[in-house]
C-alpha cells in the first residue's frame, strides 16, 4: 500500500530538516569534543608569524628557517586536527606545512613542493597534487593514541596512514624549511580546530 502525506506537511518537514543540521559537524565516527590546546609561536631564521600567516622571507637553503605554532603535547585519547591552508606566495619549494611530533621526534611531516605537490617528508611519497599558489587545501589528521593509528586526509581523502607507539605527541603547523628546501613562502592557515574522544 502506498503511503502519502499532505504536500504542505512534506514541505514543512523538508524545510525544517534542511535548516537544522549539526551545529558543527565533525568527520569520522564521534562523539567528538572540541577543545583548544595551548600553543607556542616559533620564529627562527627568516620565519615570521602574524596571526595565522606564516612567512619565510628568505631563500636561504640552510639553517633553521621556521614560522610555526607548536601545540601542547597529548598522550591519550583519539585526537583530530582540522585546518585549511592557502599558499599565497611560494617562489621557494619543499616547505613543511603540518607536522605531528612523537616521543622519538618527527612522526609525520606534510610538505609542499613548488607546483603544488604535497608529499610526506619521510619516504617522499606523493599525497596529493593541486596545492598550487592561491588554492585552499583542507587537512584533517586523526590520531588514535591507543592503537597508534595516524591518518591524514587531504581534501577529504585518506592520503597517508601510519602507526606509532605510545608516548607524548604534538601538532605543529605553519611554514618550515625542510632539509632539501628553501623559501620564500607565505602560508595562511584558517579554520583550525581540535577535537578529542
Amino acid at each position: 500500500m502506498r503511503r502519502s502525506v499532505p504536500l504542505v506537511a512534506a514541505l514543512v518537514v523538508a524545510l525544517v530538516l534542511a535548516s537544522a543540521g549539526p551545529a558543527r559537524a565533525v568527520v569520522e565516527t564521534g562523539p567528538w569534543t572540541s577543545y583548544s590546546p595551548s600553543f607556542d609561536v616559533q620564529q627562527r631564521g627568516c620565519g615570521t608569524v602574524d596571526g595565522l600567516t606564516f612567512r619565510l622571507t628568505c631563500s636561504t637553503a640552510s639553517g633553521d628557517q621556521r614560522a610555526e605554532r607548536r601545540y601542547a603535547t597529548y598522550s591519550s585519547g583519539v585526537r583530530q586536527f582540522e585546518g585549511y591552508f592557502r599558499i599565497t606566495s611560494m617562489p621557494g619549494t619543499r616547505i613543511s606545512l603540518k607536522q605531528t611530533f612523537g616521543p622519538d621526534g618527527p612522526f609525520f611531516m606534510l610538505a609542499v613542493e613548488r607546483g603544488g605537490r604535497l608529499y610526506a617528508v619521510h619516504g617522499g611519497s606523493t599525497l596529493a597534487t593541486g596545492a598550487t599558489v592561491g588554492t585552499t587545501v583542507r587537512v584533517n589528521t586523526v590520531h588514535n593514541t591507543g592503537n597508534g593509528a595516524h591518518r591524514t586526509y587531504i581534501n577529504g581523502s585518506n592520503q597517508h596512514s601510519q602507526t606509532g607507539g605510545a608516548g607524548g605527541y604534538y601538532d605543529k603547523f605553519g611554514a618550515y624549511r625542510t632539509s632539501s628546501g628553501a623559501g620564500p613562502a607565505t602560508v595562511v592557515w584558517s579554520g583550525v580546530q581540535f577535537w578529542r574522544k
Partner: protein
Amino acid sequence: MRTTVTAATLALLLAGCSGGGLSAELVTPVDIELTWTADPAAADGGQVVEFATEPAGPWTILEFLPAGRETYRHPDLMPDTTFHYRVRPLVGAASDPVQVHLDAARSDVRLDDSNLSWAEPRTVTGPPPGPAGGPPTSLTATVKSRSAVLFTWADNAAGEAGQLIEVRTADSPTWTVAMALDPDVNSVGLMASAAERQAWFRVRAFTYGTSSAVARRTTGH
C-alpha cells in the same frame, strides 16, 4: 484542494539526491562518484567542483576542471561523514597568451634567485587599461632569473572573484591553472617548473556562475 506526495518522493526531496544536474553516488562505502550536466556558462573559463562536510561550508575546491568534464570521483573518504558537493562555472575571458622561454644558458639574465620579493602577488601601477569590464590586457612575461618570470598585466575587471594564471606547456594541448590570485592583483612572479620553462601563459579574471544544486552523501565505514 488537498495535494499529496508519496513517501518515496519525500525521501528524494530530503536526501538532496540530485538537482540542477549534479548527482552523487556512493560507489563504495568510502568512494563517491559525481556526475552532472556541464553548464554552458563554463565554456570559456571551465568549472570547479567543491566539497564541504557541513551544509553551510566552508567549501573547498577539489579541482579546476575543463568545461566539458561531467564526472568526478572523490576517493578514500573519511568514514561516517556527510559530504556535500556543488559544481560552479568560472565566467570570464582570458587575456591573449604570452610565450615563456627559459634557457638556463642565457647570459643576459641573472642566475641568482636570492632576492624574490618582487614575486609576491601585488597590485602595481601597470600598463594602460583596456576596455572596462573586459579581459585582462597587456600581459607581459619578464624573465627575471634562471627560473623566474614576472607577469604583469592590466586588470580591467571590477568585482571579480579572483584571477587565474593559466599555463599550457609545450607537451600538452590543454590549459591548466598554475596560480589562483586575489582580485585586483596584476603582478606576480612564477618560479617555473621543468615543464613550464617552455610554455604559454594567460591570465583570466573570473566570477562564479550559477552553482549546481548541492548533492550529498554520507560515507560508511
